[in-house]
């Protein structure tokens, strides 16, 4: 719980409540972004998803054997984004599960898998929404995977052990999703007193506290699945460049 100081007064408390009620389950609810924002985020997301569909079909055409692993990566997102977990702030939120797919198949593919998950939730669960799909896709299926993948690649280059890089990648992907969501909300609902930056600071600080334990959980679960994959699908992980070939070829990583 973030204490509301007397000086900030009404603005802070209502922002806090917006956060807790609209966004405690991560996605921005249906109809809760003004039309201009909804359209803008849709336009921003569309090229990423189109590009993602292209690289997904290319991947499946060139390596039909990877379809199964693609399914598994999508399934991981499905499971994790259905898990609403309690957090230290006394409200519930859920992880995203996008880090694994981003590490395995690169972020463009994850844009598609994340969009499918978000569509499922918007259509069947009234969770998130069609009008806010663009914004939610941008945070969960684009920004999260890219941020996580970036951290993963950076740490790989620094020769950090694989499972540590996977943990950090998943952790950052999860947290970045929330950061982008708070930017989106701050843009749509700036604080009456302190404007965009004030709203962003408040949204962001509360998000961080709620989401950090969940991001840790997500990191641990992603490491668990990656450990199982290393044991069961060594060949495929080597082809995807996650595992270095036994002969010590560094080229596979630098792909």
């Amino acid at each position: 719980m973030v204490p509301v100081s007397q000086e900030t007064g009404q603005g802070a408390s209502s922002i806090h409540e917006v956060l807790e009620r609209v966004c405690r389950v991560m996605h921005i609810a249906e109809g809760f972004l003004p039309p201009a924002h909804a359209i803008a985020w849709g336009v921003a997301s569309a090229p990423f998803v189109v590009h993602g569909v292209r690289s997904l079909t290319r991947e499946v055409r060139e390596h039909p054997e990877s379809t199964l692993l693609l399914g598994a990566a999508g399934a991981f997102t499905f499971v994790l984004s259905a898990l609403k977990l309690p957090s230290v702030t006394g409200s519930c939120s859920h992880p995203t599960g996008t880090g694994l797919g981003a590490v395995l198949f690169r972020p463009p593919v994850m844009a598609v898998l994340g969009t499918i998950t978000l569509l499922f939730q918007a259509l069947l669960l009234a969770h998130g929404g069609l009008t806010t799909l663009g914004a939610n896709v941008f945070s969960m299926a684009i920004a999260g995977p890219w941020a996580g993948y970036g951290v993963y690649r950076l740490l790989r280059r620094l020769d950090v052990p694989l499972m540590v890089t996977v943990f950090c990648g998943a952790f950052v992907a999860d947290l970045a999703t929330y950061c982008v969501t708070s930017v989106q909300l701050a843009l749509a609902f700036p604080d009456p007193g302190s404007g965009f930056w004030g709203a962003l600071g408040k949204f962001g600080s509360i998000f961080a506290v709620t989401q950090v334990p969940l991001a840790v959980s997500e990191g641990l679960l992603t490491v668990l699945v990656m450990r199982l994959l290393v044991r069961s699908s060594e060949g495929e992980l080597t082809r995807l460049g996650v595992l270095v070939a036994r002969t010590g070829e560094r080229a596979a990583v630098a792909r």
Partner: protein
Amino acid sequence: MKRNTRINVLLLLAVAVLAVAPLVFGLGDHKEEPFAGADAEAETAITEIDPDYEPWFSPLYEPPSGEIESALFAVQAALGAGVLAYYFGLRRGRRQGLERAGAARTAGEGD
């Protein structure tokens, strides 16, 4: 227990502890409705920050009750878990089949 299995179990335990700790330590006690995931209150919340704002679109389909909503969330998790289990089961089966075939071949050569 093998070292590998032990690490996996520890990972799961850590996640469970992270999920249960907030409940055990009563971190939601200060709230009227602790650990809720209420989208239903969303409308009042936005009108507090922006009294003129009205949601301009409503979901095409809304689960009629909280029970049905959680059922659908369970379906989502079950679908995902099912596909994951299928993947790992298939992999394991294939590997065992290959090992058995390999063992049979070396046994055949030994004759």
